[in-house]
């Protein structure tokens, strides 16, 4: 039963990724695009975790952790640049 639930959750996360891509394309301001990119990172982490469940291997954890870190640092750097005009002052 968990096989079907995994498929459903993977489809949901993938559809969410497409919707985020749409917002990334049409987003009226730069901040909307940054938010869409942040949500895309979240969805990709979800897909990696679900893929790790599906394969049963415990090696996808590092990829998820790396995505979380780079996504957070990237979003904060974008926001810092939009707020102050430079990333590191």
């Amino acid at each position, binding site marked *: 039963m968990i096989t079907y639930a995994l498929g459903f959750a993977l489809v949901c996360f993938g559809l969410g990724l497409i919707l985020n891509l749409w917002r990334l394309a049409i987003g009226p301001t730069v*901040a909307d695009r940054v938010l869409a990119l942040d949500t895309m990172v979240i969805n990709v982490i979800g897909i990696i975790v679900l893929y790790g*469940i599906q394969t049963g291997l415990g090696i996808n954890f590092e990829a998820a952790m790396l995505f979380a870190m780079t996504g957070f640092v990237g979003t904060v750097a974008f926001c810092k640049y939009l707020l102050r005009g430079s990333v590191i002052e």
Partner: protein
Amino acid sequence: MTGALDIILSILLVVGGLFALTGSYGLIRLKDRMQRLHAPTKASTVGLGTALLVSMFHGLMIGTGFSWQEVLVMIFIFVTAPITANYLSKVHLHSRHYDGQTPQTGVSRDWATFDQAPEDAEPQLPSRDS
């Protein structure tokens, strides 16, 4: 035991997938740019949280045991999600789109992100002489 765990984890996965889809759909659907900040937080807390929970408990089903590594990702996501939301709302506020729409603070000072703190000429360091 395994059958009950199977059902519980399946329900968790379906709920998490629906929350993730709702968060991304809200990002498309909501009109105002501050409102759009609201939707993806659901995807990052409930959606990703249930996926990581299922990943933790899945080892009990297939016999490899409970895995604690996902707790690290969960803690990291739950700590950093409010920080990114705070920064993005600051970007919205400073883009002057909400000028005149922010509610009054009730005190003599403006909102903290707009308020210019009085600058000291020189930072007062505690002296070590005494």
